[in-house]
């Protein structure tokens, strides 16, 4: 016999279900008046330093259907690559946003500041990116992925470098569609399947 490790095990995940908005984005569900406003309405407030961008997209299931009931959360650094709470971080950047795909169009829009380069603990530079977490009916455990930008230098990003099938790198890179505007579609399954992360 050996000593016991006495380690607890993480609580198992369950799907967020079709009514995730009730708890996370009440106004989307038609619930007003419990909270003054929905949590994470915007990752930035007035005066955020840097380039203000919009990222638009849809999330497609395995049949190519744009899902109408997904919820996203994004987390990112400010324009200088500092996360909220770190020394010198931009006080106008909360870094956190919650958004849903539209009930009719299935599109989402994230308006934020373009993040700067973030350093790993080992010192390596990561290309500018926004972390994304996706939950919905039918998704048993939230999916992590990242949004990179096609007009940034992604060549030496350590995470992108780990993707063996190089053509899959493109699934994490938002396409520039206009002035400060990007398109980022998520494909859960099948052709062009987005790379999801086990972090």
């Amino acid at each position, binding site marked *: 016999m050996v000593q016991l490790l006495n380690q607890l095990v*993480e*609580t198992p995940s369950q799907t967020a279900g079709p009514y*995730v908005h*009730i708890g996370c984005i009440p106004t989307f569900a*038609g*619930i007003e008046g419990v909270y003054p406003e929905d*949590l994470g309405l915007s990752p930035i407030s007035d005066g955020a330093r840097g380039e203000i961008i919009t990222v638009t997209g849809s999330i497609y299931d395995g049949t190519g259907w744009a899902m109408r009931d997904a919820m996203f959360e994004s987390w990112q650094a400010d324009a200088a690559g500092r996360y909220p709470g770190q020394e010198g971080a931009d006080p106008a950047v909360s870094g956190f946003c919650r958004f849903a795909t539209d009930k009719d169009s299935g599109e989402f829009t994230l308006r934020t500041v373009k993040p700067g380069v973030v350093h790993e603990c080992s010192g390596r530079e*990561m290309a500018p990116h926004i972390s994304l977490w996706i939950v919905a009916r039918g998704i048993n455990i939230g999916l992590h992925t990242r949004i990179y930008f096609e007009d940034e230098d992604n060549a030496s990003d350590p995470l992108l470098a780990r993707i063996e099938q190089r053509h899959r790198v493109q699934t994490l890179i938002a396409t520039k569609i206009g002035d400060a505007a990007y398109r980022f579609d998520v494909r859960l399954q099948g052709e062009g399947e987005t790379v*999801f992360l*086990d972090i």
Partner: protein
Amino acid sequence: MSDNGVLMPRRREAHPDAYYPDYKTSVTRAPSLPLLSMEATPSEETGPRFGHGLIGALDNDLIRNYATGEGLAIGERIRVHGRVLDETGRAVPETLVEIWQANAGGRYRHVKDSYFAPLDPNFGGCGRTLTDAEGRFEFMTIRPGAYPWPNRANDWRPMHIHFSIFGHAFGQRLISQMYFEGDPLIERCPIAATIRDRSQLDRLVAPLDMQNSRGMDYLAYRFDIVLRGRRQTMFENKPEGM
């Protein structure tokens, strides 16, 4: 940087698989390719923090936070309480816990729920709170009813409360569901069955907690939550290269 060290890898076997055909929606919403594994970086080890200024006085009282005038939500009055810990057993203080649920008849206040059980005019179904310094939280609510859903022809969800927990790192983000001790529908639910390890499913079933119930007022259920832990060793989090 990170307040408590590197995130331990997630034990995927403790969680549901993405693809579980008895839960039909998962069939087209499960990635078919393996996840890309990586060690957590500052992008995952940091995360949003929310202060007490966010929380209103009734935010964790679902019996009253949507009630109008003298009316209260109808149903079994319950208190749901517990602690948020990490895998090393440390309390997770000052973290946001959000819940949502159906009313006593199993009806959600959501534009898309068309089940013919009636809405309760005094029940919204959402609540939130911050854990205290020891990781404790509590909610007052009414026990949600079971409800049918369009999966197989006669599928019913067990009574449940949805939970969303932040922790202190984006990589700890978790959404799950709390079930109630003794509910016979748990055994018949394809969503509960997505969890392969029976002992893990048991951890989502809140026991009746008579010690913390209050006579002539409410029954209590206890629900403890464990988030991913953070490793602390002598050799990590050194400043070189930062």
